[in-house]
Structure formats: structure tokens, C-alpha cells
């Protein structure tokens, strides 16, 4: 009897396991599976921080303006806009016939409500910042929204492209803190081409198609974003067919995947660029922001442009790109990446990799190796050119880069003391404490250059966002100007000028702008958008368009 019982148990278990392998066959929806290594931190657009959250927001919500992969903005829920002559009043005509996912109609009231929601909540980390210049936002009737400004801005479309339209009837009770920041928004009702079906944090996000979308009804029925803990696993999931597309992958796998006929690898400029930088602590000790905790222990040599220039010449950027990115990147100039399109000053000529020249510059500037140990000293012979070089310990590429830089710069008589530091501790010592010599870090960016440009501004030193301590009144003036210049061309000229200034001052060394690498299975879905200046296969434009391979 006992044996029989055990046997039954085993058989049952086996049956369960096998049944899961078979799957069900009745009328299955067309499901697109996307693999990524992160997960949205929240479904509340006001408090979201991670890129993955914004990917989901862009799919589930609509906005007044929408950012395209070619770098332009197009009107989304608004069908037209009128701008007053003084550029202080914007009148938007909202389309008719747009419904929320729960069936309720979307009106101008909802649009105005949403913008006000973000405007009135300073606790909303990012979205509130886009509304600082808004004065009033009103729905004058069911299809008209009027926004008045405190001062004119050149990039209204950019500002509005992040202000997701949420339903007033859902958010009415959550307009103020703390309700607004604590609201989890699990149902995530919006008007976008996809609607929220299921969300398990750090596991998956399941979206269903909104076939009644006014503009972009998707061809697939469902999209599932599945989270995997590591990049390696991500690639494997694509190869094994567990997912149909992956939004990131390590460069080292490109060669292998290119040899796989079922997979297509796509590379290009990323939608949200990331810029790696080599930060030189060049803050002026006399202007050390001690009242906010500035300590300013930077090596004096780094305040000398000659030293920074020599180091720039001693850096073989191509080798860095080859080894760290396996070639998937382009040499960098300033914090403004090439992915920012026309904002990027491509007329600047990068410093050539020329070790002899670098050595010459240092010799001429008086940094000689007086004691013959291979390391140069200050002109007054006091300190050797030994720089503490730190990076955040959660970066897997930075150690490799640090190693390479250390070797390259040893050719010009400079040594580095390498150390990985906990990101929190690194923030603490970076800025505004300025308790370091060199840091290897990086910035993420929006499509508008304003944020990255602010990092060079003197006004950001006490804030800690100016991490180099660079202070140039000429630059500061231009920064203010571009913030209010309404003419696109004129603004671009200003931005180009600013780039030239900081490039000539060698404020940073920008090793590279990395490319994005994504991949999809050619035997599952087709219609991926891969020919745009920016690549993002998980962008709404791609996802609404793909359909199963016949």
C-alpha cells in the first residue's frame, strides 16, 4: 500500500510538471515578450525614477507632444497649437474621441488636471521640474487647454512630452502630497496604445493592446516585459526563445549572436544617451563652498589646463572603446553626446592621441621627473603627479577603464591610485565636498541639452551637480541665455559655443559615447523600426507596429 501511494504522488507531480510544458491551446492571444535587466520602480508617473518606468509610462499614457525617434516632436493628444506673440500663452486644441482605458472619455479637463497635478507637487521628483516656468494651466472648454508661462521658453514641446495625461476621475483624491506620492497607481488608467494588465515588481509587466487607440493601435494583443537579473541571462533568454526581443545586451555577445541566423542584432545611438566621463577636480580652493560641506582636497596639478590637456593627448580613446565597449561607441568630446542630434557640435576636432606631444606639453609646463622614478612632480618639486582615481563600485566597466587609463597615463609620467568606492560614499566625497582628484562616472540625459549644460555652470557648484568645480563667467552667461532663447537656430549656436568653450578648457575627458545594442528574433515578429537615428526597439513606435512573422 505504501509503495502504491508513493507511486501515485510521483505520477501526479510528473503530470503537473508536464502539463505546464504543454501549455494551453485555445485561442491564444498574440503575445510579444521583451526581456530587460531592470524593472519599473513604480507605476506612479510622478515618483518614477528608472528608465524602465518611463518606458512603460510612454506606452500606457499619451501626452500633448510626443518625442520621435528621429529627434522631432509631434503633437499627440492635441491636434493643434497656437502660441501668442510674446510666447507666454499656449492654446492647445485637444482631439475629440479619445477614451481612457476604462471607457471614460478624455477631455481637456483631464489634460489640464494632469499638468496641474505635476505642477502642484514639488515632491514629484522629475516631472515637477518641467513645469517650473508654467504660470497657469486651464481647460477653457472640453477641448481647449490654455497654458500661460512665467517667462518664455524655447522648448515647450520637450517640457510637455513628459507630462503624462492621467484621468481626473481616478486621481481626484490624490492631488496633493502625501497622497500623490504614496498612490501606487496599480491600475494605471491612461489613453495610450497599451493598457496595464498585470504588474509584479522585479518580475514582469504585462500590457494589453488598446485596439481603440486614436492614433497607434498595436497589431499584437499583448506585450510582456520580463525582468532578468543579469545581461548574460538576458542574451540566453533570447537564444532559447523565452523572449522575442531584448532591450540591452553586453557587447561581448554581439559576435556570437551575429552568427545565429534566428537573431538580428541592432546597434545605434541610444534613445536616452549615457555619457561616461573622467572628472577632474579643478575647483578653486579660494572659492571652496565650505558652507555646504566643501573640503576641496584636489591635487593642484589638475587645476592647470596644461596637465588636463596633456592627459587628453595621452588617452587612446579608440583603445578604450575597443576594450571596454568592444567597439560599440564613438569617441567623446563634451558632455553633450552625439545622440542629441543637431545640438551636438560635431565641428570640434578631438585631441589626437599623441604621447610624445603630451610629454612635451608637460615638459614645457615645468612638470619634470626630478627624482627619476618615472613620475613627474609639480614645477616646485613638491608633489608627484599621483592622482587618487575613484569610481562607483557598482560599475562593471569602470574598473577596466581605470586599468587602461592608468597604463596609458603612466607613459607620460602620471600615476593613479585606483579605488572602487560605494556609490553613496562616492557622492559624499564628490560634490560639493570636492574631496577627490579624479572620478570616473557618467551622466544620463534627456533629449534637451539643458540639463547636461547645467553641470558646467558655477551656479551648480553649491548644489553638487557641478562635479568639477569648473567656473567660467563667460560660460555661465551663455548658459542663462540659451535657457531663454526662443529661436532654435540661435539657441543651437549658443549651445555649440558653450561646447567649444568647455572643450577648449578640457574640463572633462569624455572617453566615449556608448551605443545601444539590442536584438530580436527574426523568426518571431517583424516590423521592428531599426533605421532611425536613435534606436529603441521598445519605443512605442516599434511596439505598435510589429506583428508575428507569417
Amino acid at each position: 500500500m505504501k509503495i502504491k501511494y508513493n507511486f501515485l504522488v510521483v505520477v501526479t507531480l510528473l503530470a503537473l510538471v508536464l502539463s505546464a510544458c504543454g501549455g494551453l491551446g485555445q485561442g491564444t492571444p498574440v503575445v510579444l515578450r521583451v526581456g530587460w535587466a531592470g524593472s519599473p520602480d513604480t507605476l506612479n508617473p510622478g515618483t518614477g525614477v528608472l528608465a524602465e518606468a518611463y518606458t512603460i509610462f510612454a506606452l500606457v499614457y499619451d501626452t500633448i507632444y510626443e518625442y520621435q525617434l528621429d529627434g522631432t516632436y509631434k503633437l499627440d493628444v492635441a491636434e493643434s497649437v497656437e502660441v501668442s506673440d510674446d510666447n507666454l500663452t499656449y492654446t492647445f486644441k485637444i482631439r475629440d474621441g479619445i477614451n481612457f482605458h476604462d471607457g471614460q472619455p478624455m477631455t481637456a479637463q483631464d489634460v489640464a488636471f494632469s499638468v496641474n497635478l505635476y505642477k502642484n507637487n514639488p515632491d514629484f521628483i522629475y516631472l515637477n521640474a518641467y513645469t517650473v516656468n508654467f504660470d497657469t494651466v486651464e481647460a477653457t472648454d472640453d477641448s481647449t487647454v490654455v497654458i500661460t508661462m512665467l517667462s518664455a521658453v524655447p522648448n515647450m514641446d520637450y517640457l510637455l512630452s513628459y507630462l503624462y495625461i492621467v484621468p481626473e476621475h481616478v486621481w481626484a483624491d490624490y492631488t496633493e502630497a502625501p497622497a500623490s506620492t504614496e498612490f501606487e497607481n496599480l491600475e494605471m488608467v491612461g489613453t495610450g496604445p497599451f493598457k496595464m494588465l498585470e504588474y509584479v515588481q522585479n518580475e514582469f509587466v504585462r500590457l494589453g493592446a488598446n485596439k481603440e487607440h486614436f492614433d497607434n493601435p498595436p497589431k499584437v494583443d499583448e506585450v510582456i516585459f520580463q525582468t532578468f537579473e543579469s545581461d548574460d541571462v538576458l542574451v540566453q533568454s533570447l537564444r532559447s526563445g523565452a523572449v522575442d526581443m531584448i532591450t540591452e545586451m553586453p557587447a561581448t555577445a554581439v559576435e556570437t549572436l551575429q552568427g545565429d541566423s534566428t537573431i538580428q542584432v541592432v546597434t545605434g545611438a541610444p534613445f536616452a544617451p549615457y555619457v561616461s566621463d573622467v572628472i577632474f577636480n579643478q575647483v578653486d580652493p579660494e572659492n571652496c563652498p565650505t558652507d555646504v560641506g566643501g573640503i576641496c582636497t584636489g591635487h593642484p596639478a589638475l587645476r592647470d589646463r596644461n596637465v588636463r590637456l596633456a592627459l587628453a593627448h595621452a588617452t587612446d580613446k579608440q583603445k578604450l572603446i575597443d576594450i571596454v565597449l568592444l567597439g560599440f561607441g564613438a569617441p567623446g568630446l563634451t558632455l553633450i553626446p552625439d545622440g542629441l542630434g543637431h545640438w551636438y557640435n560635431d565641428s570640434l576636432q578631438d585631441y589626437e592621441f599623441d604621447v610624445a606631444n603630451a610629454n612635451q606639453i608637460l615638459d614645457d609646463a615645468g612638470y619634470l621627473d626630478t627624482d627619476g622614478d618615472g613620475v613627474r612632480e609639480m614645477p616646485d618639486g613638491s608633489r608627484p603627479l599621483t592622482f587618487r582615481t575613484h569610481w562607483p563600485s557598482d560599475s562593471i566597466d569602470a574598473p577596466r577603464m581605470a586599468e587602461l587609463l592608468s597604463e596609458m597615463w603612466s607613459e607620460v609620467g602620471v600615476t593613479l591610485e585606483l579605488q572602487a568606492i560605494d556609490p553613496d560614499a562616492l557622492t559624499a566625497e564628490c560634490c560639493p565636498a570636492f574631496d577627490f582628484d579624479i572620478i570616473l562616472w557618467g551622466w544620463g540625459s534627456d533629449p534637451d541639452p539643458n540639463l547636461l549644460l547645467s553641470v558646467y555652470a558655477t551656479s551648480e557648484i553649491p548644489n553638487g551637480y557641478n562635479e568639477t568645480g569648473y567656473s567660467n563667467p563667460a560660460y555661465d552667461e551663455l548658459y542663462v541665455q540659451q535657457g531663454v532663447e526662443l529661436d532654435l537656430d540661435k539657441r543651437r549656436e549658443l549651445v555649440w559655443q558653450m561646447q567649444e568653450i568647455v572643450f577648449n578648457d578640457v574640463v572633462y575627458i569624455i572617453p566615449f559615447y556608448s551605443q545601444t545594442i539590442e536584438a530580436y528574433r527574426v523568426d518571431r515578429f517583424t516590423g521592428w523600426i531599426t533605421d532611425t537615428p536613435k534606436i529603441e526597439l521598445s519605443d512605442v513606435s516599434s511596439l505598435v507596429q510589429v506583428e508575428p512573422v507569417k
Partner: protein
Amino acid sequence: MSRYRFLWKKIGWAIFTVLFVVVLNFFLFRVLPGDPVRSGTRDPRLKKDAQEALRIRFGLDKPVINCFETLNPIKVGDCAINPFETQFFIYLRNLTQGELGFSFHTNRPVAEVLGARLWNTLLLIGAGQILSIVIGMIFGILAAWKARTSIDYGALITGLVAWSLPTFWLGIILLFWGSNNGFPIGGKATPGTSSYPFFYQVGDILRHMILPTLTYTIVYMGEYLLVMRSSLLDVLAEDYILTAKAKGLTTFQILKDHALKNAMLPIVTIIAINLGFTVAGAIQIESVFSWPGLGGAVYEALERRDYPVLQGVFLLIAISVVLANLIADLTYSFLDPRVQAE
């Protein structure tokens, strides 16, 4: 001492340990340098006011232990009204209500974040522990019984090698072999199956559990094998085994009725002690296999320096270990009649 005094002494000590962990937990994460508010969101869009707002939201604006830390008269004034308005006491108060704070990363209550994950980890560890105990014991018994034969050496070497394998390494290897051979690539269940029939879901989860459980079993079985073997060897050399043999009992009867019960006593202690180590193992296995458990939560929170979550996990784990030790002690005392005589 009587059985009851023994019990109460153990329970009392367990409670004290938990309190100690609670206090330690608080200070552990306050000692960290850096500003969790800033570093979590390293972005120039985060303006000063928003930073302040975040700080207030997380209660980081209050003094840590007592009111006289900050000599800011305004703050001290607040405190004077209610001297328990310090981070430490707020922490304690929240704990009694089962609140573990809010995650820096997602702003959800930590207790909620960890709740579901706790069960997932228990499922995985539970299955793994049971399997490793059973397999380890069976082979340990076999090895001891057939001591000094090739079966013994074989089992011994297997146990020793298994014990020497780094957990995450074994996991990676199994994962890649498995994913090329039809096993799921990770996770607990196939996404989108939550509306499927119950048995399908159970089978799906079981399928996802196979590789991580296998990893766990291989790594931990070694220890149980070794302990069972040496324990049984000791027991089998005892006089009462000879008595049993002299009574005419068969080898099987002797093993079953005399040897195993005694030999298993050390195993009980090991299981409890192991719980501390299995946490480290769970962290590795869950991160390799993307299993949404407490270990995975630690790994993610580590990456993002989400201190409230780390703090919550730490507390949960420590309390579980204390509980497990307590249960092991009590179980041991019930199994071994000699213990009461202490």
C-alpha cells in the same frame, strides 16, 4: 532543571536576541556615509526643494537618537514637545505596528515588498532543504553502514566535492546547461499565466523550481552527508548496537530502531545553524535564477543601495534564524531525553 524552566530560558534568550537585532539593525544602516536621497537619484533635475521633500518623506530630517543631537533650536523645540520624535523611536514604534518603513527605490512599504518574496524564498529553501537533508542523510547512512568500502569512499568524495562548489558558480553552470535544454531561463513562473488553471500554474512553478532547487540541494547535501556519516559511525560503534545485534535483530531493524534516532540528533542542530548560511546561498541562487525571493531582494537592494529594504530583509532574516534556532533547540530537547537532566 525542569522541562518548563528550560523552555522559558530558551524563549527568553530568543526574545533578547531579537531585541538586540532590532537595535543593531537600526544603527547598522544609519552609520553609512553618503546621502541616500541624493545618490539614489543622481540627476540635476532633482532640485533642492524636492530633495528636502524627499528627506522629510523618509523621516531623515529628524534627529537620530535624541533631541540634543542637532543644536538647531527649532528642531530641539519640536522634540521638547515630544521627546520620542527621533528616528530611533519612530523606527521602534513602526516596528511594533509591523511597519518596516518605505523603500527608497519604489516608495512602497517595505513590508509589502518583502511579504510576497518571503513565501517565494520559503518555498525554494524549503524544497531545497528537504531534498538535501533527505539525500544527504540517505547517502550518509549508506556510507556509514558500508564504511571503508568503495561505496563509502564514493559517497564521501561526492559529499566533499559538492560542499566545495561555490553556490553561484554551480548555479550559473546549471542555468546555462538547462536553458539550452528546455528548462526555463529564470523567474518563478511564466509571465501572463496568472489567469491559467491552478494545476497549470502549479506545474509551471515546479518547472521553474527544478534548477534552483537542484543547485541548492547539491551544495547543501554535502554537509548533511558528512555529518550523518560521522554521527552514524559514532552511534554504530556504541555498545547498545552490539546489544541489539546480540538480541538477534537484523541489520535493517537495528538501523531503523536504534541507530537512526540517535544519529539524527546532531542533524537537528545542524539544520538550525545552517539556516544562517542558507541565507547567503539563497542570495546567490535567487540572483542567478532571477527567483523573486528575499535573497533576490537583497541583491537588488544592494545594487540600488535601497537601505530600508536591506534593513527590512536583514531583520526578517535574523528573526527567522533566531526562530529556527529556537525550534531546533526545543525539538532537540524533545528528542533527547537526556537533555532534561541538565
